[in-house]
């Protein structure tokens, strides 16, 4: 596995889930959960960000935020603060 899970003794807890915000440009992840603000989550789900969707981070904006991601053949932007609530594996 490319991303070893933190050991059970790690101070940050037994298992820190990776989120979309942790992916570097060019990396892909499969969505495992969409959380955070209910409105934002529903909006993302309407656009097809649901469990099992493959999302690829394309780039970050010149000022570091928001992110541009590709899913289902189209480009979506979202802020890091929203991407942090989308867990991926």
């Amino acid at each position, binding site marked *: 596995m490319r991303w070893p899970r933190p050991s059970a003794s790690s101070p940050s807890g037994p298992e820190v889930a990776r989120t979309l915000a942790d992916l570097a440009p060019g990396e892909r992840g499969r969505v495992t959960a969409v959380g955070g603000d209910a409105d934002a989550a*529903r909006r993302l789900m309407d*656009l097809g960000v649901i469990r099992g969707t493959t999302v690829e981070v394309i780039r970050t*904006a010149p000022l570091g935020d928001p992110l541009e991601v590709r899913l289902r053949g189209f*480009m*979506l932007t979202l802020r890091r603060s929203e991407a942090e609530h989308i867990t991926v594996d």
Partner: protein
Amino acid sequence: MEVVDAGAVIPAPPAPSPSRTTPGGGVSRVALIGNPNTGKSTLFNALTGMRQRVGNYSGVTVERVEGSYCDGPGRVLTVIDLPGTYSLSAASPDEEIALSVLLGRTGEVEAPDVVVVVVDAQNLERNLFLASQVLELGLPTVVALNQVDAAEAAGMQVDAVELTLQLGVPVVPTVATRGEGLDVLKGAIRRAAELPRPERQFSLPAEAEQALAPVRACLLEAGLSRSAAAMEALRLLSVGRADGHLGGIPGLAESLERAQAALEAAGLHPRSLEAESRYGWIAEVVDAAVQRRATGAKSLTDRIDAVVLHRVWGPLIFLGLMALVFQSIFTWAEPLMDLVEGGFAALGGGVGALLPEGDLRSLVVDGIIAGVGSVLVFLPQITILFLFLGFLEDTGYMARAAFIMDRFMRGVGLHGRSFIPLLSGYACAVPGVMAARTIESRKDRLATIMVLPLMSCSARIPVYTLLIGTFIPSLTVAGIFDLQGLTLLAMYLLGTVTALAVAAVFKRTLLRGQVRPMIMELPPYRLPRLRVLLLTVWHRASMFLKRAGTVILAISVVLWALATYPKTEVAPGTPDEIAQEHQLENSILGAAGHAIEPLVRPLGYDWKIGVSIVSSFAAREVFVSTMGTIYGVGSEADEQSGALRDRLRTERDAAGAPVYTPLVAVGLMVFYVFALMCVSTVAVVHRETGGGRAGLKWAAFQFGYMLALAYGSAWVVYRAGLALGLGT
């Protein structure tokens, strides 16, 4: 006589019925719905041509666009172009309107007889989400599979027949930009009402069906159709509350809560159930109907974005584009402006020669023609700006601008989307305020609207141009810059920086609220359709023309009258110039100017500047024409007028000191950077902030704070300048 009588007896052929579809009868109302960037507007234009009406849904700031087309003799169909949405979740005003129109629950728009879902063939998965929601409403539905040509170019073959079988409604391939497939689409619309009604094409887990049954029952009782009730029940589950148009249904909230609890107990996720069920079904549909040929090549959009959104090149290109827009205002528009100006001068001269000397000639030539002409001279500039903004929007660059600027805008508590309306504010606050509709959060929208008129719009340009050209010397600074140009730039920066600062203050105080998500599609780049672009520009430019034709015309006439009456008798032989000054000083306008002189005196202004400021409450550019009237240069009064500039330079007060020093001019410009001198903006803000009392409150607040800011800043500039010895 007999013929007429006979005509009264023989029944006239039945007029096309405006009423709802009768079994086997005609279709009279068609609604277009679809995701943004699917070519829906292009399809709407292709169907309806120039027969369009643009209005507003009452109470909300959602544009209501309707058109019509003739489908055979006597069969005129009304087409409602619903706002572009990604879903019917009713999470934004746009979605809420789209859903209530389809359900016939708006009270002002009749439910459509046929719904056309415009679907982008290149982006079938996401587009089918909305389509699947619409299908469940159970209305006669036709799917327009648009941009099939682009999909094929991208290596995608969409099988329309397979899609028809999967969706249970006719699917018509179209290329709206070339008008392909329109006849087939019209035929499908004509016959859609005779086909079996569409319904949900997938099934929910048994537990979910069971849990939702009471919610459905509740909605059925409230008058929804069977299929609409099923769709709404699922939607409410994902929204998590009974909202908007379903707010008042008794027992709904309780049954919804019980359904959520039951689903959670069964191990299902109530919030994601709808999206996951729909996308699960969509995956099967797409599998069956779409054949992909891996092209391997990066798409054109990817290649453009690699440059346009690049860390270094992106912002540079952005700045370059903005510079180009500014360049276009000041250079490209000039020949056209000369043309308009020359036209009005010729018109004034021609009409003047036809009318006898007297009040009527003065009214027509000096009042109406000169007044309206001084405003219409900006039409070329404004049109070029609208063209630019429309071009950036239609190509897809505007979304990129929001992407690049979001981090920056967030610094002041706003959204990347606020950037587009604010940018439009450089052309004219009116379309900018209207463009703020795309901002979902009400508080963000209000903050954007409240600061938008601080962006220096083109109506300020004549004020700046007159004052800079007259009082700021054309010196070369640092080898390449001109002091006049730098002064102009400083005024733009002052307005922009203040707008952002004020927005930050509002977002932290008056309009404090939760940070809104910035979830936005970056659409593929597209070559704009000239027709659509020109139509947009025409809609916007004609708004400006209407304003010139009504408000400015009225103000010109009133001002002329105020400056002309009561008449002052002068001794025969008095030079015209002196006579005019006497006349003005003793007129109603002169009296008003004298009355407010104590108020503007601390800013270094005399009564004549006071008069010009008061008269520019109508529109900033009126300042220039009023100055022209006051200084008796009449019809030549524009910001380039040499006569007016000379008069201003040589104007002396009672003590013989010059009235206009560069310091007064700078203070006056600063005043105009901040003051909301524009009746049209006030009217639009009133409408866009909710109308009625609420809108009045916001509009009055905006006018007040901007006037206070203007007065205070002009005072500081003048006083500080005097203290520094810059008074002469």
